[in-house]
């Protein structure tokens, strides 16, 4: 009798371990949530054009709950070799729990120009305040995000009319 109990325990343990392994295998596509995004990222995005229109270098800080709490944007206009700096006014993000894809919305406020000849940043493009909309996908458990601009991609400031904000920007964010 005494010797049978450990044998049963061994069998039950083995069966439980097998069940857990099968369960883990069955749910190989992990579920995703807001806490996997953040807290701090460095990002490099740009247009994928032969004649590059712009690049944007960002630092973002999330609360891991759906809010992007702070950030800076250095907007490089490659066609005129000018740089403008923006500060994050507000930001939010969402996550699809099954696919790990989501949307991010970033609203930027002009902070400063580089050497005084970037007046067009506030006068025309992209403006004193503007909002960017991105689709993104989580990679490496949130260590990396790939982003592509949505439609509308830009809103506010110069982006008015019946179909404003058709724009293209792509890139990646890497956890700091």
């Amino acid at each position, binding site marked *: 009798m005494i010797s049978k109990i450990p044998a049963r325990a061994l069998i039950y343990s083995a069966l439980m371990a097998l069940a857990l392994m099968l369960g883990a295998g069955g749910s190989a*596509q992990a579920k995703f949530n807001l806490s996997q995004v953040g807290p701090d990222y460095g990002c490099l995005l740009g247009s*994928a054009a032969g004649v590059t229109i712009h690049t944007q270098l960002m630092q973002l800080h999330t609360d891991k709950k759906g809010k992007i709490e702070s950030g800076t944007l250095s907007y490089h206009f490659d066609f005129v070799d000018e740089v403008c700096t923006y500060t994050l006014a507000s930001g939010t993000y969402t996550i699809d729990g099954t*696919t*790990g*894809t989501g949307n991010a919305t970033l609203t930027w406020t002009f902070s400063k120009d580089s050497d005084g000849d970037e007046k067009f940043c506030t006068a025309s493009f992209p403006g004193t305040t503007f909002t960017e909309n991105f689709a993104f*996908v989580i*990679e490496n458990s949130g260590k990396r995000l*790939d982003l592509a601009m949505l439609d509308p991609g830009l809103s506010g400031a110069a982006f008015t009319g019946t179909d404003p904000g058709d724009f293209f920007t*792509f890139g990646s964010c890497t956890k700091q």
Partner: protein
Amino acid sequence: MNRGCVNERLAKVRSLIIAPVLALAVTTCMWGVANAREFSNKSLHGGYGCLTTVGFNGSGSVIQLVFDGKGHITSGVSVGNAFGEVCMATLDPSGSSYTVNPDGTGTLTVQSKTVTAADTDETAICTLVTGASTHYAIVVESGGSRFDLSGLDPFFTGGGFTGTGDIDQVNALKSGACNRQVGG
């Protein structure tokens, strides 16, 4: 100290030096063999997130794909942006597949199922790619946690892409990379 004693000590010193060097050589050799990894369809499994762009125009996509490790892609979604016009697509598993060769190279085919336009002025583009397949060459990296991909020719088949020859020149240079969504 006699000569025999000195020789004996020299022999001991030699053995102390030669043995570790030999051990290091054997270990290095084994390490090299251990790293001669063979890849297969099993190398890609689970969810991957991807970014692809076109080198000479303003197009790109964020893609999410789930590989089963057996050559099938079981689900996936994508957001594609072409000059600011955006289509959101789901993948058709029945027309999507991949292969991985022992050297880590392979191919990937992704067929779209439903394609939704972000607003009314991209309806024509989104209709064009509905039901279409995209074809890539791939190379597996980092033991399968990442792969690079580059568009094949033809890149698009099916859907609104009909005819023969170079029916898809605009998209032939689409390239990018995918990273495993969990781990890494």
